């Protein structure tokens, strides 16, 4: 280059002349190109800062504006893969100025692994198709996009039109839902305090173990551990001490057992240890003794130590012995009964279930409960209480949940947990449900918006649907006043029936809520199939919300999930302002709990705000 021509200004000519000549030759060059038809736009400068560009053919103007304002990136690409045109959005996605995009190979902006895919939908003669790819932005980040390719014939040149839809937001949402699913699954199968499997997972493991034991003819041991006087630990030391004790006991239990065994926490101070593949019942007793010894050792706490003891019940299932417990329920009942026996003998001891010696008050109890429910049904002994559900943003009562109570012959009020399990087992629950439906529809007919709970037995019964339809028609009731609540567990028991049932209710104009959400095994695939309007967040996640980041993340996940499915959320068990405020912040729509009103007998009319 050093010997190349360097056009230095001719010293003989004044500078103005040199400049003028340069301008003149530029003008001549431009005119030549115009004559040859090679020019596509003229640039005109006036007083405005930006030059004005006039296309010689402006037929494409509307499309240009359209493409420039697209939310997706767009480019035209030559046969050789060179970007001939790119809109501003694409430059934005790539994090570079336009002039660093135009004129470069499109492949240089696509993440290496995606280049063959791009070639497949944009190569010569095979243009057309869609793929997902990573766009390399200037900071070497990869932006996920959906690329759409289509061929474009311009004057016998085959060009390629590419559009790039940004998937960043969608990907973030997918990740959030995956995290939510993982959190809910963990929450549904594990105890939050100790991280141990909960009852749901335990029952699942017992079921599997018993099935394997039946084939392998091995024994299965179940040890029920209940701490003695744990209530006093909580009462004197506070919940923090109680929690520390429970965590320590959980650790000790796990240290005693084999890796194949399961230690679960049923709740409160109740633990269960499942021992698969035992050679004899004696093995289970040995483990129980080791457990007792370990629990007896002083527990070191922040302030001093604590001594606790446990009442331990052992039950064994042996498939070779007739009458041996063969279901999880049965085995749990035996271990439970043995534990109660140990407790009734003063605690701090281990009892082995023995059909002849262990008192099973359970059966006797059940008979009296059946009789009491029967009486209540015959003698109008059931009552509905109403608890207000408020809109968190406004505090207005939008509906009431109806809660069932039984009035005993002596006038005592009995909570549902005392009689519902028996009612379900004895087949009386259907009759109770039908009574509740009639009462609820009577309230709805008077213009009250009410939510009622249906049992698993009734949810999906064609007869129940008929009853609802008949009653609604007979009273000319606004079906929109009725919300049917079904627990997540119920809905999942028979998803097909649940789906048909819910769909039919919604078709009638009623609404549908999934109760105790987060405690069951709801898979998202199933959840999508149910026409649910409300997800009710279980009290389990609400009680300690203000103190528990874990609960907060679960609530956050449920809200995100509901939003994704177009559903609203109702929090249960709200007892203080701080929790209500936090729920509101997290985006929960409605709430119920002692803060807003306890379940109360229905006297006169229910106070509710008008719906907007």
């Amino acid at each position: 280059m050093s010997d190349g021509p360097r056009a230095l200004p001719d010293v003989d000519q004044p500078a103005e002349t040199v400049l003028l000549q340069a301008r003149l030759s530029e003008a001549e060059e431009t005119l030549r190109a115009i004559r040859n038809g090679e020019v596509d736009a003229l640039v005109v400068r006036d007083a405005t800062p930006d030059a004005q560009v006039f296309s010689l053919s402006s037929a494409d103007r509307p499309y240009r504006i359209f493409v420039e304002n697209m939310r997706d990136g767009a480019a035209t690409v030559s046969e050789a893969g060179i970007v001939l045109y790119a809109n501003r959005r694409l430059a934005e996605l790539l994090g570079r100025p336009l002039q660093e995009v135009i004129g470069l190979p499109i492949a240089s902006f696509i993440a290496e692994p995606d280049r063959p895919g791009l070639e497949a939908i944009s190569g010569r003669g095979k243009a057309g198709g869609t793929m997902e790819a990573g766009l390399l932005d200037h900071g070497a980040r990869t932006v996920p996009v959906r690329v759409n390719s289509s061929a474009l014939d311009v004057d016998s040149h085959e060009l390629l039109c590419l559009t790039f839809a940004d998937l960043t937001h969608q990907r973030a949402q997918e990740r959030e839902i995956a995290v939510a699913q993982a959190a809910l699954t963990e929450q549904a199968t594990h105890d939050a305090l100790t991280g141990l499997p909960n009852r749901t997972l335990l029952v699942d493991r017992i079921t599997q173990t018993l099935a394997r034991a039946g084939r392998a003819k091995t024994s299965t041991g179940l040890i029920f551990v209940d701490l003695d006087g744990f209530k006093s630990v909580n009462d004197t030391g506070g919940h923090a001490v109680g929690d520390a004790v429970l965590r320590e006991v959980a650790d000790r239990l796990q240290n005693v057992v084999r890796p194949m065994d399961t230690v679960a926490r049923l709740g409160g101070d109740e633990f269960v240890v499942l021992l698969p593949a035992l050679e004899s019942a004696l093995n289970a007793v040995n483990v129980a003794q080791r457990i007792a010894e370990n629990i007896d050792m002083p527990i070191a706490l922040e302030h001093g130590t604590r001594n606790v003891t446990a009442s331990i019940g052992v039950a064994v299932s042996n498939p070779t012995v007739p009458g041996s417990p063969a279901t999880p329920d049965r085995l749990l009942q035996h271990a439970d009964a043995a534990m109660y026996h140990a407790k009734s003998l003063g605690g701090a001891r281990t009892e082995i279930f023995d059909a002849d010696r262990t008192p099973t008050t359970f059966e006797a109890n059940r008979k009296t409960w059946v009789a009491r429910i029967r009486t209540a049904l015959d003698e109008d002994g059931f009552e509905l209480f109403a608890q207000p559900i408020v809109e968190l943003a406004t505090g207005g009562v939008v509906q009431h949940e109806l809660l069932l109570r039984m009035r005993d012959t002596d006038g005592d009020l009995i909570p549902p947990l005392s009689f519902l399990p028996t009612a379900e087992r004895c087949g009386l629950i259907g009759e109770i449900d039908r009574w509740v439906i009639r009462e609820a529809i009577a309230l709805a007919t008077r213009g009250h918006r009410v939510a009622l709970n249906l049992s698993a037995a009734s949810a999906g019964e064609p007869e129940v649907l008929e009853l609802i339809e008949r009653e609604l028609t007979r009273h000319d009731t606004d079906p929109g006043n009725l919300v049917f609540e079904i627990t997540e567990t119920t809905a999942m028991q028979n998803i097909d029936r649940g789906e048909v049932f819910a769909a039919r209710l919604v078709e009638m104009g009623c609404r549908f809520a999934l109760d105790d959400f987060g405690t069951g095994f709801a898979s998202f695939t199933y959840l999508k199939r149910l026409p649910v309007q409300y997800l009710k967040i279980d009290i389990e996640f609400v009680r300690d919300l203000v103190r528990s980041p874990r609960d907060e993340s679960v609530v956050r996940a449920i809200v995100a999930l509901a939003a994704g499915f177009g559903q609203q959320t109702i929090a249960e068990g709200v007892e203080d302002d701080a929790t209500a405020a936090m729920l509101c912040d997290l985006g929960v729509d409605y709430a119920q709990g002692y803060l807003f009103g306890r379940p109360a007998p229905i006297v006169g009319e229910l106070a509710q705000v008008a719906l907007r």
Partner: protein
Amino acid sequence: MTIEEHARTLASFEQALAALETDDYELTLFVSGASESSAQAIANIRALCDEHLPGRHQLHIVDLHQQPGLAEGSHVLATPTLVKDHPLPLRMVVGDMSDHGRVLVALDVAGAASPS
């Protein structure tokens, strides 16, 4: 400073000077969207640079429809126009750049061109 050191310094100075002399070509192509002429010009100038100035050029492409402000400071009257910003003197070529020979001459590249 010994004689050898002196010679070395001088040599490196001359080397640096030579590097300055053979500085990369800086070209700007002003286009107007993806019109036929502009598309042709982009494709032609890229092919030309890859063949005659491999690794020794920087090509900026400016779409004046999208960035009319970038026309400021240039004397561009129409698109497509190619401007050679470096090495001096400033030169411009207007049109679709299909006549490679003419473009090379206009840009003073002919002397530096590899045999083709």
